[in-house]
């Protein structure tokens, strides 16, 4: 094996192409990469291109080594690990840049293309949109064209041909890739546990809440999840999607402490049952938003916590579809344990003194728990409390500040104050965060729940009732619960973002239609799993589908794919005349060859026909007619062959199907 063609120096033009491909592949990562990594890669590329413009080679080995060691060392210092998706991506990007710096021969081009392929894959592990996939396939096409161009000895300037040939190869690869994708067995879970740096940033609700938190979410149009009810839709005041339940109050913020694997207290479910599919967007949290109160769910390792949150052991890093059943009402089947009572009546000592005094006064007037609850809710309704998206800032004791000074707040303020007042009266109370409401998409019959639908409410324990959902916000802004945030304006203040107000209805409809397509993409492609594969096998009429049969189908696809490819590439080698008359004549000769009378290369049409007539009198007259017509079309003095007689000749050949071999003649 000689290294001669590989040692060939890379000149400016190929370098520019490969740099452009790398830049396109890095584009989806730029937001997540440390800024200096991007800068280093860009700097390395610029330096290398500049050197090439001057007609010089890569910088000396010593400089390259020092730069690489510094950059990779710095990255390790910053990230502390190279394991996991985001660290790996950063490392790979850095290596690509450094590789570019030392690019000299074709070998380096191979390395960079492989890095580009892997970077594209890494972007797809995090992203999920159809557009990203299309974009990256485009990048892959371009990179492959560059590879083709840079590894063949074709003369420069033949880019268009390389792009076309690479596109053809890619097009032939596509059906094969789809077959693999459909039938390659899925395992459902990760093969091994990765450090949970979580490919993307966490989104949506977190496991703590200070009064202002949800306000930030209210401005976000991002989709949290989509829901499709299979039978019956609950009324809006029952569409509470349960998220993290918060117990620990420090006077300012509420937090969640993990109760560990404690068996949830028994629930006596009641009321209508709703079955639905929640299509969760990846949010890097463990909890799954379900309707109060879930009874069944199809999360493989999902379980209910002691406060009825549905959680799974690993964060949701990929789109997840959960089929669940919930009952709108439930009663406690057992008394509250002492530990839980203690946890949910605890208040930080010395904080919010004015609220505590208020609670004592109210409690003295209403010794009955229910009366007390009503008294507090009446206070919210009757006193000048306002619901607003832009509440004033609060000092340390948020409940005091809100109840006595500002009186303006968002759902978080009301839920927080209400729970504090309950606890002050010795009633176990906790804050539940989640989503409430949602937008109905009439084009595809499902609900879109956005981050702006985030909500906070309370649960209190009343003897004889169990946990009871109380939404203090509904006292102040009942519309919030009935219509959702987007249609709501209180106290002359627009709650919806300006963009939403100005959106004309046709645009909103278009958005809904697009969202319906996005849901379809999700359900068909993103959440394609083992079950979908079994359904697919069933649809192919394969009885009792299982993993083994899946493997057989995959093997079948592989074999037929290879045969198909063989046929595809052989077809390129067959010389096919463009002229329909010549093509038809070819067909005629081929058919006669199959019955044992091949035309010799030197034989003219009429001589051939005469020989056929002599060997096979039964075919003679037809062949003589056809061949004479062919001669006329080709050589008749009237020169211009008219389309009609050409078509007649082609039709005659198509109809001509000789049977029997020489033996029968």
């Amino acid at each position, binding site marked *: 094996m*000689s290294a001669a063609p590989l040692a060939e120096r890379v000149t400016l033009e190929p370098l520019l192409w490969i740099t452009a491909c790398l830049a396109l592949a890095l584009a989806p990562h730029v937001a997540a990469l440390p800024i200096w990594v991007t800068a280093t890669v860009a700097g390395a590329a610029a330096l290398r291109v500049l050197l090439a413009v001057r007609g010089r080679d890569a910088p000396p080995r010593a400089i390259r080594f020092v730069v690489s060691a510094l950059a990779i060392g710095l990255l390790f210092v910053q990230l502390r690990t190279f394991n996991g998706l985001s660290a790996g991506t950063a490392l790979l990007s850095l290596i690509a840049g450094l590789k570019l710096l030392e690019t000299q021969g074709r070998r380096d081009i191979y390395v960079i293309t492989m890095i580009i392929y892997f970077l594209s894959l890494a972007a797809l592990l995090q992203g999920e949109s159809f557009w990203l996939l299309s974009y990256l396939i485009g990048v892959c096409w371009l990179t492959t064209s560059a590879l083709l161009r840079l590894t063949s000895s074709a003369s420069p300037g033949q880019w268009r041909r390389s792009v076309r040939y690479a596109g053809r190869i890619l097009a032939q690869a596509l059906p094969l890739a789809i077959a693999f994708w459909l039938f390659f067995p899925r395992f459902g879970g990760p093969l091994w546990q990765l450090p949970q740096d979580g490919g993307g940033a966490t989104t949506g609700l977190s496991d703590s809440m200070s009064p202002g938190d949800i306000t930030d979410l209210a401005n976000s149009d991002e989709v949290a999840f989509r829901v499709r009810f299979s039978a019956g839709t609950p009324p809006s005041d029952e569409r509470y999607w349960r998220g993290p339940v918060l117990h620990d109050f420090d006077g300012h913020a509420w937090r969640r402490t993990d109760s560990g694997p404690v068996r949830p207290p028994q629930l006596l479910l009641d009321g209508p049952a709703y079955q639905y599919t929640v299509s969760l967007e990846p949010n890097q949290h463990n909890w799954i938003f379900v309707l109060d109160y879930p009874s069944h769910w199809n999360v493989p390792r999902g379980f209910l916590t002691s406060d009825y949150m549905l959680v799974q052991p690993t964060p949701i890093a990929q789109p997840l579809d959960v089929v669940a059943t919930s009952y709108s009402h439930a009663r406690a089947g057992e008394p509250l344990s002492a530990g839980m009572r203690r946890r949910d009546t605890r208040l930080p000592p010395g904080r919010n003194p004015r609220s505590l005094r208020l609670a004592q006064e109210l409690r003295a007037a209403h010794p009955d728990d229910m009366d007390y609850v009503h008294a507090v809710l009446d206070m919210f309704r009757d006193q000048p409390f306002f619901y607003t998206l832009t509440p004033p800032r609060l000092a340390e004791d948020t409940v005091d500040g809100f109840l006595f000074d500002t009186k303006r707040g968002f759902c978080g303020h009301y839920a927080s104050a209400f729970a504090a007042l309950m606890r002050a009266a010795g009633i176990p109370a906790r804050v539940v965060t989640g989503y409430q409401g949602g937008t109905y998409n009439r084009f595809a019959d499902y609900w879109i729940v956005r981050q702006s639908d985030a909500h906070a409410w309370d649960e209190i324990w009343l003897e004889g009732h169990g946990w009871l959902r109380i939404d203090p916000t509904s006292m102040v802004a009942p519309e919030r619960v009935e219509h959702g945030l987007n249609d709501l304006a209180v106290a002359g203040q627009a709650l919806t973002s300006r963009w939403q107000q100005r959106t004309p209805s046709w645009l909103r409809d278009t958005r809904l239609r697009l969202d319906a397509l996005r849901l379809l993409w999700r359900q068909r492609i993103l959440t394609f799993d083992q079950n979908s594969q079994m359904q697919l096998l069933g649809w192919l009429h394969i009885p009792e589908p299982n993993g083994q049969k899946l493997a057989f189908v995959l093997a079948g696809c592989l074999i037929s794919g290879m045969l198909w490819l063989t046929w595809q590439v052989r077809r*390129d080698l067959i010389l096919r005349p463009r002229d329909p008359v010549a093509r038809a004549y070819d067909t005629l000769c081929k058919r006669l060859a199959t019955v044992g009378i091949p035309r010799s290369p030197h034989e003219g049409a009429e001589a051939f026909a005469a020989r056929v007539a002599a060997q096979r009198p039964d075919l003679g007259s037809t062949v003589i007619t056809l061949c004479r017509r062919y001669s006329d079309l080709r050589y008749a003095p009237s020169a211009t062959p008219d389309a009609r007689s050409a078509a007649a000749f082609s039709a005659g050949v198509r109809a001509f199907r000789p049977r029997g071999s020489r033996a029968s003649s």
Partner: protein
Amino acid sequence: MNRLRQAAIARLTRWSARRHGRDSLPLTITKRRIYIVPTRFGIALALLLVAMLLAGLNYNSNLGLGFGFLIGSLALVAMHHCHRNLLGLKVDVRGETDALAGGAARFEFLLHNDAPVERCDIEIRCAAEAPATHSVAAQAYDRALLDIPVVQRGVLRYERFEVRTRYPFGWFRAWTYVHAPLTAFIAPAPRGTLALPAAAAAVGNAAYSERRGDEDFAGLRAYEAGVPLKHMAWKVLARGGDAAVRSYTGLAAQPEWLEWSALEGVEVEARLSQLCRWVLQSEAAQNAYGLRLPGTEIAPGRGAAHRLACLRALATYGTDVAP
């Protein structure tokens, strides 16, 4: 690793030789004789694909898996295209060539492409020598010249040559062995300082004057077709006589014998080099010359074929190959 590789290649060539026997030229490359393996870049790509598959499965990412399968399928399709690049190509070669030691033996191959697609980057190679790379346009034929540097006098023989391609992408290498012998007769490098034997003999000899008389008029003879016009005896013709030609005396008419025995005491290869130089000098001077080697005698003559015969005799001297 390298030894293992070479052993494998040796086995394969032996097996292929047994399988196909001697090939008759021109040879059409059929699918039965095309072998294909991944190159080291192909192997690297395969490892990358495994990594991509694991990543896709581990992150349970359908899009990631899909993209990985696309790249994998791309490699499979590339394999078929690499195979196709050789399939149906017709190869021919002139099996014998001549060279001087220290120069290059040039074999001339003819690649004939009947198909309506271009064959890109077809490499032709003999053993481990640097290949000749050629692209043949659709429905065309092309001459590929393979120059193999030669150092030593003698006969260079290859039992087979290899037609290979790594197009497209260089992830795979498809090749075929053509079991047709290639022979290069390598004459010794022309060296030596001795003058031609006849010239040496002429010094201080009676023959000298005869040699001086190269251009002397020696009489008239009858015209023959092909005689240079300046030798025509125009005056005779003008007097109304028959067309006549003036003839001259000169050494040109005297064949020169280049003798092995004339170089007694010189080492064998140096002797052959000297003889080779004489052959080339005589040919350049357009003198007739003969060559005498132990066991071989080439009658005097001149011209390309004669020169070739002499050079081959020098090339094969002492080898068991007949010139």
